[in-house]
């Protein structure tokens, strides 16, 4: 099987004197470049009582700088077919875009400008607040979103950073003012935590040169990492329903807390999850609930380890009359996985899939940039693409099955259901 060259991506990684990290990976496959600018300023760092600050800032940051108005930035980007994607994840604040490579020297300074010198215009504040409020209201009307958000709130209680909504609540967003955004930015935006990844049709020395020019004179001290404590273990099984009478379908989330990305059990759990809820359209869960029982259009499990311990959440959308049957089927597959583990053939297939999918994952500029950023953020090394096949291949059946036993148990599952139906309490 082809898995790429032994040399792998071989990106250039340099540290600027101000502490910023630059990663450049030239690729001439399309005459374009993907630029990703990341700062350690995600929602986990939201101040107490002001959930949604990082997200609010992501809506505001490109609306003007000390030297450019919001309209000027819009005209400059739109005229080149470029749209910035600005997002706040749990731990990161990320500004990214793809541009034609001929536009790279113009676009990179704009990204630097909005990151370093946002003016956060007061006049935009209420416009953006209205958009966020509308988005939160849309989420409240989306059963899949309600099920997942409530699942995370139960798995990570007491204000845990992974249990809070990234967008915040209607209340907290109502309280965020310009001062709060500016204070957050001052505290979390610094070259010491900055990572800039450029993948595309631009030579590495030029990337280093341009990034140095755009960010090299930025000064600032270190940014404290956000401590993420392990959540309390669940007392037992929990099941909560969230009635949404006028909807056609019910959405189920069924999950557990698991591990951090750097946990030694990571690769075993990744493979176990692939067998359980990913391989060939939903793994064992897909085979049972979609293929054999015809109950759901979608069913899968998502494993999301992070800097702290992250969740494994099984999700399905089913007819309201099938909720109990679907949850029982998930219970059965979870119990079977914990009790019997995976088979040698299943493990071999999942290994082949995950190793064999790497050329596809690393085909596009955006795919390579996302991979390299995660390597940097989790400290995996710039040769991780070369080592990954070996790390996956080396996982044993015993390790996978030990991971399944350690994390999966229906009696410890946290289950949320949103959609038509009567409310039910803890069971």
């Amino acid at each position, binding site marked *: 099987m082809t898995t790429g060259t032994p040399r792998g991506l071989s990106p250039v990684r340099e540290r600027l004197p101000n502490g910023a990290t630059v990663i450049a990976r030239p690729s001439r496959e399309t005459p374009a470049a993907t630029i990703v600018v990341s700062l350690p300023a995600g929602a986990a760092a939201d101040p107490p009582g002001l959930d949604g600050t990082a997200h609010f800032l992501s809506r505001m940051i490109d609306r003007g700088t000390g030297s450019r108005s919001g309209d000027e930035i819009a005209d400059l980007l739109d005229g080149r077919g470029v*749209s910035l994607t600005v997002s706040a994840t749990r731990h990161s604040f990320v500004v990214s875009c793809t541009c034609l490579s001929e536009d790279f020297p113009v676009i990179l300074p704009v990204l630097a400008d909005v990151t370093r010198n946002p003016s956060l215009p007061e006049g935009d504040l209420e416009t953006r607040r209205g958009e966020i409020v509308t988005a939160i209201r849309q989420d409240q009307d989306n059963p899949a979103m309600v099920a997942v958000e409530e699942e995370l709130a139960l798995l990570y209680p007491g204000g845990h950073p992974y249990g809070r909504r990234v967008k915040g609540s209607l209340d907290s967003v109502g309280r965020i003012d310009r001062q709060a955004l500016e204070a957050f930015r001052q505290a979390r935006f610094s070259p010491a935590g900055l990572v800039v990844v450029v993948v595309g049709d631009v030579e590495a020395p030029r990337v280093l040169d341009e990034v140095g020019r755009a960010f090299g004179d930025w000064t600032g001290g270190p940014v404290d990492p956000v401590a993420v404590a392990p959540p309390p273990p669940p007392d037992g099984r929990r099941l909560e329903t969230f009635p949404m009478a006028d909807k056609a379908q019910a959405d189920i989330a069924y999950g557990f807390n698991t591990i951090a990305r750097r946990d030694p059990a990571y690769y075993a759990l990744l493979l176990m999850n692939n067998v359980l809820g990913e391989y060939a359209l939903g793994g064992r869960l897909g085979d049972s609930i979609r293929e054999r029982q015809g109950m759901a259009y979608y069913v899968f499990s998502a494993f999301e380890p992070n800097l702290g311990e992250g969740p494994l959440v099984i999700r399905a959308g089913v007819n309201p009359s099938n909720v109990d049957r679907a949850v029982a089927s998930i219970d059965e597959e979870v119990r079977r996985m914990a009790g019997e583990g995976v088979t040698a053939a299943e493990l071999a297939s999942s290994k082949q899939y995950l190793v*064999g999918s790497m050329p596809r994952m690393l085909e596009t500029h955006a795919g390579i940039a996302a991979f390299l950023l995660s390597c940097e953020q989790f400290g995996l090394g710039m040769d991780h693409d070369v080592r990954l096949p070996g790390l996956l291949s080396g996982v044993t059946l015993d390790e996978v099955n030990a991971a399944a036993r350690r994390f999966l148990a229906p009696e410890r599952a946290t289950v949320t259901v949103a959609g038509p139906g009567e409310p039910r309490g803890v069971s």
Partner: protein
Amino acid sequence: MGDALPLRTAVLDNGLTVLVQEVHAAPLASVWCWYKVGSRDEAAGLTGISHWVEHMNFKGTTHIPRERIKGIIEEFGGSWNGYTWIDQTTYLETATRDALDRMLFIEAERMANGLYDPDECESERTVIISELQGSENDPDQLLEIEVNAAAFKAHPYGHPTIGWLPDLRRMTRDDLYAHYRRYYVPNNATLVVVGDVETDDAIDRVRRRFGEIAPGEVPERRITAEPDQLGERRVVVRKEGTTAYLKVAFHAPAATDDDFFPMLVVDAVLTGAKGVNLWASFRTPPPQRSARLYRALVEGRLASAVSGGLMPTADPYLYTVSVTAREGAPREAVERATVAELDRLAREGISAGELEKARNQLRARLVFESDSVTNIAHQLGYFETVASAGLYLSIGDRIRAVSREHVARAAARVLRPANRTVGWFEPLPRGESGDGGLA
């Protein structure tokens, strides 16, 4: 992608069109098999059958048991999928180049040897109804279905690709199998291979896998052309919800109409250019901060989002502007501002600066949406199915050739009040039921 060799087209003796494009950037190959059958080919009582047939074509063939068909390409690290829309049904695999023969084998099996086990057909019925109900949970999708149905009173583009629920409940295994046998013939299909392959070798492999499949009678399409719309139509969906949504849809030119590319420019000016890749374009937001409708609605604090949708289609379809009303914004004001911008463009056309910006945006989006063997293969097959692969290859020239005058003509033709259907989703507070149904 850089340094690509010319596209090679071949037609096998059985009528199968084969398109091969070498791209050697990564050790990958993408195979797509396209059928000229979609929801526009569905008669009353059988709406949704093309999409259901697509689902059945992942349920096993004579030589690939059901439990193997979804994993067979993942062993090569590959991805696979399929979709059905108004003009087309298509299937794809993208995997390492050494899986090329296996990908071709899967598609040949799918064309000729689908099992259509009666129990599997029944089991899939509820999966598809679940898919339908999942989409109904989204008020925006619910509204889209109602607006499209109101916009078309004769042409089958008016019914949803997933079908109407009563048809999904009644359709039989024999209906599905007859539809499959009628349309899944080599002379109604296009097989596309893009990637790290050698063209002659790829065509030989295609011939070995598909050459023995017998051609069929290519079904004659007898489709009612949509008569001119004579006046504005309106549809209002009232249902429990939190947010109001507006759609304004106009009958729009087909892919081969001279006005299609000028209308892409119109959309770029109104909502930012998306490009023309149904598979990839909508995954990244359009450059729209300076677009007319964004400035009027989002910056005007009337909407939280606005988008435009215009896709190349075989027959005239729709250009649809979709607006998410901002919490608390008066609906009348949202609609008034939306329509005012549409009317202004129809009346006054666009400026030279706007034309240049739209061209630049489209040029960039065409590069961005062709960044993988999967995306290139999609575009070749898509255009060959709804129009011709040649049209795809000429897009850059056609966009460069668009003039302000042509944009003005196209906008005046399309963005007319009598040509539009206006749809609203009006959210009702929790506990209140709508007036939209008898149930």
